[in-house]
Each structure stands twice: as structure tokens, then as C-alpha cells.
């Protein structure tokens, strides 16, 4: 979902930068207040894992692939503010070192994935806690839903940006992006659950740092 340069017009790129810069600045302030010792390497490992996992594109249908976004996972492990920073780090390395995603478009990409992706995943995961609880199956269901929602909403916002930029009419690009990412979101949900299951079995304490605690 990394938008290259050229897809977005200047106004949309600038708006993406302004909003995402603001959001990341708030995230930095919030993380500064609440970060604890264990979060430091966890943030690094989460970013590294998500970077690596994003290289593993999986085929979904008819010559299209998807890959992990990781925003929901980062939010579940570290809370949404640190989650924003994790995905921002990944996106920045990808754009600056690997030319994956444009430089002008990096602001919009951060907005879509590090802000909307992370937060929609977090709100889905946290939002279903009351209804579903904390048993294993519930955590996995909430994680799957969080992963799916994060990908679909990030894709829809990207589609809106593409429409605003005149790359494609909204009536075409929004359903197209939404449709293909509804499929990719299934992969995201499954990978999210797999990681949560692995951590639940090996390091359940890492899942209770933020996911089940009441502090955001």
C-alpha cells in the first residue's frame, strides 16, 4: 500500500505531511511519558519483525499479492502511540533506503498506515474487549478483526487520496482498493493471530503490557 511519488498531487502530499507530522509529534510526546524499560527493545524488535514480514508478499488472487501492514500488531503489543512510531520507523526506512513508497508521498503513507492503520486496529482490538473478553479465542478473534479493519481502512484512505489527486475517479478507485484489501486483510488478520498465538504461548507477559491494561 506504499504510494509512490507521482500518484498524489502536491496539495494531497502536503496535507499528508502536515497531518502525519502532527500525529507523529503527538505520538512522540505520549510515548515519552509512558515508555517503560521493557518497551525499548520491544519497539525495536516489533519494527524489525514488521519490516521483515512486509517483505514476505503472499499471493491472494489472480496475480495480486498482499503483505503485512503490522499496525494492529504493533498497537496490541505496545499501545497505539508507540505503535504509530513503530510503523513510522518501518515506513521511513523503506522509503529512504529502499525507495519503497515515495518521499513526497511518505507523509500520506504514514497517515494511512502508521496513524489510521494503527489506531483503527487498536480501537477494534480494545473495543471488543468488553464484549468478548480475554480468553485465548477472544484475543485471537479481536486480533483478527483488528488486523482486517486496519488494512481495509488504510486502503480506503489511500483511495480517497488517489481520488483527490485525480489519479482515478472515486467511484472506481475506492471500491477497487477496498475490495482487494478486504482480501489482503484476511492475510493480515491471520498473521496477527499467528503472532499473538505464538506470544501467548511463549511470552504472555508481553501481551499484557498494553493490550489488556487499561492505559492506552
Amino acid at each position, binding site marked *: 500500500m506504499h504510494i509512490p*511519488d507521482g500518484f498524489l498531487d502536491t496539495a494531497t502530499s502536503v496535507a499528508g505531511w502536515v497531518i502525519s507530522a502532527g500525529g507523529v509529534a503527538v505520538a512522540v510526546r505520549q510515548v515519552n511519558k509512558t515508555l517503560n524499560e521493557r518497551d*525499548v527493545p520491544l519497539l525495536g524488535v*516489533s519494527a524489525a519483525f514488521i519490516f521483515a514480514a512486509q517483505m514476505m508478499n503472499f499471493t491472494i488472487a489472480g496475480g495480486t499479492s498482499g503483505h503485512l501492514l503490522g499496525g494492529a500488531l504493533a498497537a496490541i503489543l505496545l499501545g497505539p502511540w508507540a505503535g504509530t512510531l513503530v510503523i513510522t520507523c518501518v515506513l521511513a526506512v523503506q522509503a529512504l533506503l529502499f525507495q519503497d513508497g515515495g518521499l513526497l508521498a511518505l507523509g500520506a503513507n504514514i497517515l494511512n498506515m502508521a496513524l489510521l492503520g494503527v489506531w483503527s486496529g487498536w480501537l477494534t482490538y480494545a473495543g471488543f474487549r468488553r464484549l468478548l473478553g480475554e480468553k485465548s479465542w477472544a484475543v485471537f478473534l479481536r486480533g483478527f478483526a483488528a488486523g482486517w479493519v486496519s488494512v481495509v481502512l488504510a486502503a480506503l484512505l489511500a483511495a480517497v487520496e488517489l481520488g483527490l489527486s485525480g489519479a482515478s475517479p472515486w467511484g472506481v*478507485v475506492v471500491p477497487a482498493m477496498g475490495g482487494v484489501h478486504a482480501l489482503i486483510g484476511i492475510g493480515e488478520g491471520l498473521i496477527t493471530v499467528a503472532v499473538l498465538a505464538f506470544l501467548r504461548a511463549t511470552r504472555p507477559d508481553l501481551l499484557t503490557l498494553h493490550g489488556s491494561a487499561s492505559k492506552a
Partner: protein
Amino acid sequence: MKKRWWIVGLLIALLITLFSPLASPHPDGLERVAEDQGFIDRAQDAPYQLIPDYVFPGVANEAVATIVAGLVGTLLTFGVGYGLAWVLRRRAGTAG
């Protein structure tokens, strides 16, 4: 190992990159939509090229070049994330 539990996580991430040549070569969702809807040609190259397409330059075998790119990126991203968190932790000042 308890003190450095995160090394296991980092090793898992590095292990994943060893499989990166096996990743699906198909265009991702956005690229596919751009191709189908005819705006893929709007894409512009970056003003510079370092490790484009996740293929480390100067390595003859493309699979190996992909793995090298993945290892470099994974380690660098770990460093950036860890470093950022470390800076923010230090500036917090109070116990977590």
C-alpha cells in the same frame, strides 16, 4: 538469555528475511489497482536509488541480493526503533 529476550525476536525477524526470495512476485494491491485503472504510469522514480526493489546492488545472485537487502533493512529498522525508544525513555526521566 532472559536479560536479552529480544534477541530471539530479532533473530526470528532475520530468519524471515532468509525466505524473502520466496515471496510472491505479483504486484501488491495498490499496484494492481493502479495497473487496472491506468494510473500506474504516473509513478515517478525516487531522486536517488540505494537499494531499489529490495535488491542489494553489486550482488550477482538476485536471491542472495534480496536476502542481503532484507538483513540490512531488518537490522537498520531494529536500530532505528530501538534508538528512538531509547532516546524517548531517557528523556522520560521518571521510572516507567
